[in-house]
């Protein structure tokens, strides 16, 4: 399928998301679509899939004008997509979600056996461990993303659009996805791939189109002919080397948070570690290893069955989340920004200021918009949040800019301990560095950070020490020497030791 | 009579078949007494605030005499007071406003007396002994309390020969009535000898349920002359029903309001009003027991009562120029 995008334009109140974009996607290629947060990538994908109608311009499929009134039309035309935001039916099973466009019907009734069997086939391409009969709302963010990918694959469409499909999955699943994509390419399908991870784009894609502020900065250039720095400069608009974060000097301070023998209702067993003041403590593990759940337990969102938590040496008990935040000053940036991080219907200003409302209020107890604005503006500037105004609803920002808001609000809060879960999912390279710098900066001011990330380079850049988690238990602790190769090998060593043990166990039970 | 340019409104508490005769009464009164307008105006729902809004709006439109069925016996008084301060006389029709009130007087069924007489009739039909159940209307309606008291009084007078098993209230909605009454019959039909219904809907539902059961042993005395109840009487499923006189209330009400609004007459201070628990100025619009004996003729009986009251009311209760 050949797709021609011909001077397409789209505006939202206050924003020109796309200002006349033209390029072409050929059959049998993986076409990268790149650009900074808010450049217009997702908007373009939504136009191609019939979610939005363009204000101007045409879309041609195999040379014929296509005019999609709804996603239904696009699907009928053989187009499928993984959108940036998760779009699953929470109470439906994994299998039914995957097959929903195309439920197998027998004698007028849905044939669930068949549905699950077919779903299994597509899910197996990426991750065989997910149960097709599980309810989607019980899955982790990463697992949902995998289901979403399987769902897009199930349509076996001529054009497949993937908007940051690898944002919250680990390398393991990403590689499986790439293998599938390469196979589809060889079958002559056209694929559009959006990602902020330059390395994987270079490794996977054939050509690249770069968007900048809604305009084309590079149209369909061959990746082989582009260097990393040329792509970056096309994205940010000037010759600029993206600054690498400098070496961190971290003086071993007093313990800020000590955890001893923690067991939780979620399944953690005997977890012990110490987070020192001003330290960035990394927590690495595969999807589903229980990192997010550990964070939950630490902020009073899960029942603690045994063990002790000490804050600055004193044992504490945490009643609930607001107790953790307001009394013990422990904050948590969720990996699930849509459901847990942001109030999508409220303006940026309120989302950033929410953690400090009681503190912002004037002596009369009055909290004015101006006060909130004064607190939020510098952060919005630092993180380069692209928006017509701070009054914009967060839900109307681009995915990456939403993520920035969810980080910004915790940088505003003055907590002593901050747990950060997958902070730079969907963030462009330039802002990623800015966020890294900000995290380093708050630790210098005395905040202790626990960093959960599936992004290995990020982990190795930022963390002072790295804990490795597997199956809800800590299996290793490594002092970070910030050299990528040896570090990643050691981390994976801890994980693989367990994986092999697990696999041999499985084999034993099969045998 | 002389032509008058008064505009009279007859306002029930809400839509209800009981008030249907008021429309004819209004038309007849307009013609018979040569009044500029007599209109039947119904609040859209059975809610006090809708009734008061309607009355206020009619006042704005120049109506100057109001015959009102109080949607709430007490709640209506502030509105009536307002009417009085705008020189628009008001009568409480069919039901009374609770004293102290500015309503000129109340022309209606004496609910206490009617319930009392109904119960007496029931007891008589049961042969003076047995167990009865009282089916009543909305518990929050003060009239319901009066009716409960009246039933209890009639029962007490039998000196123990008749016992009251229970009051069942809040049976004013069709479905609630159907459910509660059938549940009652389902569980205890063998212990019950008589039913006294003191509200429109439960009368109808009880009559129907007894017919469905095919039970002529249980005696029923209802209220009002709904067709279902009348048929039940004819076929022996009900002993009787307490007829009220809605037509007369509307007709006489319009007549008196015209006289009052014209300023020709005033209510006599020493008129021979009946005193009821609700008001000291009550005129009975007539109630009678419909039974097999008079089922064919009760309408004429009511007409006669209406004419009697109408022709005597001026001299008995009013003071005219």
């Amino acid at each position, binding site marked *: 399928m050949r797709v021609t995008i011909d001077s397409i334009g789209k505006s939202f109140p206050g924003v020109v998301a796309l200002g006349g974009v033209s390029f072409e996607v050929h059959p049998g290629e993986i076409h990268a679509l790149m650009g900074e947060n808010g450049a217009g990538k997702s908007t373009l994908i939504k136009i191609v899939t019939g979610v939005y109608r363009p204000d101007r311009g045409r879309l041609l499929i195999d040379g014929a004008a296509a005019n999609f009134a709804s996603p239904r039309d696009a699907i009928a035309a053989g187009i499928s997509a993984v959108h940036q935001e998760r779009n699953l039916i929470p109470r439906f099973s994994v299998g039914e979600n995957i097959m929903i466009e195309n439920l197998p019907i027998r004698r007028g009734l849905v044939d669930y056996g068949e549905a699950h069997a077919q779903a299994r086939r597509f899910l197996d391409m990426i991750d065989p461990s997910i149960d097709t009969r599980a309810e989607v709302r019980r899955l982790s963010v990463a697992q949902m993303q995998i289901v979403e990918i399987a769902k897009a694959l199930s349509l076996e469409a001529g054009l497949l659009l993937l908007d940051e499909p690898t944002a919250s999955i680990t390398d393991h699943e990403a590689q499986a996805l790439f293998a599938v994509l390469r196979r589809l390419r060889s079958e002559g399908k056209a694929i559009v791939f959006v990602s902020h991870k330059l390395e994987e784009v270079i490794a996977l894609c054939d050509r690249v189109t770069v968007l900048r502020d809604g305009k084309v900065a590079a149209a369909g250039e061959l990746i082989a002919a582009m260097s990393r720095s040329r792509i970056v400069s096309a994205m940010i608009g000037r010759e600029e080397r993206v600054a690498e974060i400098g070496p961190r000097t971290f003086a071993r301070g007093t313990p800020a948070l000590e955890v001893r023998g923690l067991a939780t209702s979620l399944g953690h067993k005997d977890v012990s570690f110490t987070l020192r003041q001003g330290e960035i403590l990394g927590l690495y593990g595969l999807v589903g290893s229980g990192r997010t759940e550990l964070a939950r337990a630490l902020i009073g969102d899960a029942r603690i069955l045994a063990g002790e938590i000490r804050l600055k040496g004193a044992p504490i008990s945490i009643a609930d989340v607001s107790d953790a935040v307001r009394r013990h000053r422990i904050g948590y940036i969720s990996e699930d920004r849509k459901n847990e991080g942001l109030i999508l219907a409220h303006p940026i200003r309120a989302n950033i200021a929410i953690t400090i409302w009681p503190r912002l209020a004037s002596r009369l107890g009055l909290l004015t918009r101006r006060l909130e604005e004064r607190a939020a503006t510098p952060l919005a500037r630092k993180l380069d949040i692209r928006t017509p105004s701070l009054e914009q609803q967060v839900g109307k920002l681009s995915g990456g800019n939403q993520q920035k808001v969810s980080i910004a609000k915790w940088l505003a809060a003055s907590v002593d301990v901050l747990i950060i879960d997958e902070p730079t999912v969907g963030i462009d390279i330039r802002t990623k560095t800015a966020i890294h710098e900000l995290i380093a900066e708050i630790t210098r001011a005395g905040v202790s950070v626990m960093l959960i990330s599936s992004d290995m380079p990020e982990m190795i850049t930022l963390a002072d020490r790295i804990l490795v988690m597997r199956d809800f238990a800590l299996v290793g602790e490594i002092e970070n020497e910030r050299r990528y190769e040896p570090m990643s090998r050691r981390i994976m060593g801890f994980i693989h030791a367990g994986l092999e043990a697990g696999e041999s166990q499985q084999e034993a039970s099969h045998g | 009579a002389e032509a008058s340019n008064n505009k009279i409104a007859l306002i029930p508490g809400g839509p209800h078949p009981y008030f249907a005769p008021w429309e004819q009464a209004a038309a007849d009164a307009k013609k018979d007494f040569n009044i500029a307008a007599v209109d039947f105006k119904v609040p859209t729902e059975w809610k006090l605030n809708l009734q008061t809004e309607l009355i206020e709006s009619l006042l704005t439109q120049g109506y100057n005499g109001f015959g009102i069925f109080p949607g709430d016996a007490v709640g209506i008084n502030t509105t009536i007071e307002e009417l009085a301060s705008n020189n628009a006389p008001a009568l409480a029709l069919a039901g009374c406003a609770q004293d102290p009130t500015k309503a000129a007087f109340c022309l209606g069924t004496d609910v206490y007396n009617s319930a009392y007489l109904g119960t007496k009739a029931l007891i008589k039909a049961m042969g003076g002994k047995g167990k009865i159940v009282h089916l009543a209307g909305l518990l929050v309606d003060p009239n319901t309390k009066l009716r409960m008291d009246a039933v209890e009084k009639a029962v007490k007078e039998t000196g123990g020969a008749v016992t009251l098993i229970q009051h069942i*209230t809040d049976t004013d909605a069709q479905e609630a009535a*159907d459910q509660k009454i059938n549940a009652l019959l*389902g569980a205890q039909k063998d212990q019950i000898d008589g039913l006294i219904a003191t509200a429109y809907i439960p009368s109808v539902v009880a009559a*129907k349920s007894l017919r469905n059961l095919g039970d002529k042993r249980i005696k029923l005395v209802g209220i009002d002359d709904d067709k279902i109840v009348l048929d039940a009487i004819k076929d022996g499923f009900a002993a009787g029903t307490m007829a009220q006189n809605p037509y007369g209330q509307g007709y006489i009400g319009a007549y008196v309001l015209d006289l009052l609004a014209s300023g020709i007459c005033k209510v006599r201070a020493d008129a021979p009003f009946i005193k009821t628990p609700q008001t000291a100025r009550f005129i009975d619009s007539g109630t009678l027991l419909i039974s097999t004996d008079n089922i064919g003729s009760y309408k004429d009986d009511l007409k006669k009562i209406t004419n009697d009251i109408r022709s005597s009311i001026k001299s008995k209760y009013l003071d005219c120029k």
Partner: protein
Amino acid sequence: MLAVAIAIGFVILSLLSPAFLTEYNLYVMLRSFCVVLVVAFAQMLTLAVGQLNLAIGALGGLVAIAVGGMMEKLGFPISAAVGLGLLIGLGGGLANGLLTVRTGINGFIITLATASVFTGINLGVTESIPFYNLPGPFVAFGVGRFFAVPYLLIPPVLAALLLALFLARTAPGRYLLAVGGNAHAAELSGIPRDRIIVLAHALSGLLAAIGAILAEAQLGSAQPTIGADWLVMSFAAPIIGGAALTGGHISVAATALAVVLVVLIQNGMVLAKVDPYWVQFLLGALILAAVGLNRLRAVRVEAA
């Protein structure tokens, strides 16, 4: 589950009152169950897509008097009158759905307004005077029974089975729940969201019409007030049965159990000769107790 509360209630009542388990009382209870059940289903379908239908009662009233009027005044045969009545219900629901979808206005407001329109037509036509002379077979259906089982129970039971099948096993049924679960996701999956919402409203209207006709047969007359007090119960049953107001999660069986529970409580209070002043209070207390019991179990299950 709710079934436990019901079982407890059943045992207590049969111990308390020998009359409880008589054939006639069971018949009476089953009979009072019919209309409420269908009405609860009517609301359940709009809840399924995350909408509210405040016009159920009003539409029911309109259908009831239309069917009554057609049989009494126009002399239509029963089947024609009932058929047309169902069509009116379907049409009213369709109007609700189309207005909601086409204008993009909250269904709450739309159905509140159309409720007023339906009731307005009802009152305008009848001037609140019922139709009494319904054909004999129609009325006989309303009171007929096979031992303790009223004929009236047949349509609701059929409706429940069909609905359960529809929601669990047919594509439109699944789409309905998908739209309620996540309207945007459903749309991206190519499900015609608007059409599905219209479908939910139309079916809701149809069920309201069935409820109205059953009520009419049960009462033996076409009362303009039919439906006037359906609203709260129509929500209460699905929600006590665990439906989410936000949509996507409903259960036919749990809704039916909730109706049984409430009917049982009401029947029990009459049997127990509860003092009228205590009826309301006990009703509230018992609902709370039942829901609390249900909740306790849910918490136990989650903890385990």
